[in-house]
């Protein structure tokens, strides 16, 4: 029930409503909980609302970090991902 789906903001409308693209499907959602969202932002959608603006660069960076984790001398190496 707490599923949230990534979508891209395509068009900002009035009353903090916006059209978003979810894997090629257009939906109208509210951006009232994510005042920083703008056209082109990636957002997480839940129950008709954007609940988070996703930092795409940060996501890529975390993924690269996981790949680099190694077990060193019997102890897990530090990771900041």
């Amino acid at each position, binding site marked *: *029930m*707490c*599923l*949230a789906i*990534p979508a*891209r903001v395509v068009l900002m409308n009035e009353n903090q409503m916006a059209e978003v693209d979810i*894997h090629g499907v257009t939906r109208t*959602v*509210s951006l*009232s*909980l*994510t*005042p920083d969202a703008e056209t082109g932002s*990636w957002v*997480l959608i*839940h*129950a*008709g*609302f954007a*609940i*988070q603006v*996703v*930092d*795409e660069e*940060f*996501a*890529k960076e*975390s*993924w690269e970090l*996981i*790949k680099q*984790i190694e*077990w060193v001398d019997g*102890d*897990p190496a530090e*990771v900041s*991902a």
Partner: protein
Amino acid sequence: MTDLQAAWRDPELDKHLVDLITQAADRPIKLMEVCGTHTVAIARFGLRDLMPPNIALLSGPGCPVCVTANRDIDLAIELTHVDGVVLATFGDMMKVPGSYSSLQREKADGRDVRIVYSPLDAVQLAADLPDRQVVFLGVGFETTAPAIAMAILTAAQRGLDNFSVLSVHKTVPLALEALVNDPEVAIDGFILPGHVSTIIGPEPYRFLAERYHVPGVATGFEPVDVLQGVWMLAKQLHEGRAEIEVAYRRGVSADGNPTARARIAEVFEPSDAEWRGIGVIPGTGLAIRPEFAAWDAALRFDVTPPPPKEIPGCQCGEVLRGVTLPFECKLFGRACTPEHPIGPCMVSSEGSCAAYYRYTDYGR
């Protein structure tokens, strides 16, 4: 982003993380995922089978549909009997049995029950049906509560006095404290719910680590996310640490979503809530504030459902606390299947029993 999502399903990365987990797990470890979406991800991607034998992944009370008490479902059903009422709900709630019936059965019997995708759709329904009373069944954790707060604020702003909410929301952190204090449960670490954490951030869980020395990691929902969360927990336990960390930084910021939290605080106040299988946990409910009493269905309608009763033989309550595995219930896979569900944990697509039944061979 689609490419990015694919990146979080990389089998090579999965294997790398499983190797790390295996090395870190130097003793038997019981981890609990407290989110129904995690329960489904773990079952669907077969992650339980990838774990070394000394790591047990248990499902907890993280499906809002499943933890809704019979008493609350009975009240929603009773409201459908009130003249002029349209009950609007998320689809997940339709088939959930209360003590005597379900919303689906009531709909089949001619009551006006409608499924909406967003609580704002229920507000619009009230605007479209000025002669009816639209009641929205407010179920969900911190992830969903801001959307329902916005629905009440929107109805107030539009002056819609034929809209109201039956609030049976629940909040997560204090429920985890109840589990930590339960001697039957004995959890070593929590896989914390990703999208609840999107709203509340890591801070509200901190007391679990500091007071009880139980670590937690807020985790995402792709296989790599879940394995990373398990690894971070195993690593903390290996090192004797207990901290609250985030393995899902693309979805959870250090402060969560303060705007969403402000909307919750504006409309709701903490209250006691009854959880199926656990009982009443003080402070884990969200009651509508007196300023918004006009949109509170519990106050608007004077209905008293018959006393609740439990479903004979159903062990959903024990499953939700992680003390009974779904396939250990006598009904699982025999009398109780997704096609003919008996208890909420099999009804809800995110229930532990449904996830075990659909995606694994356990108990067959």
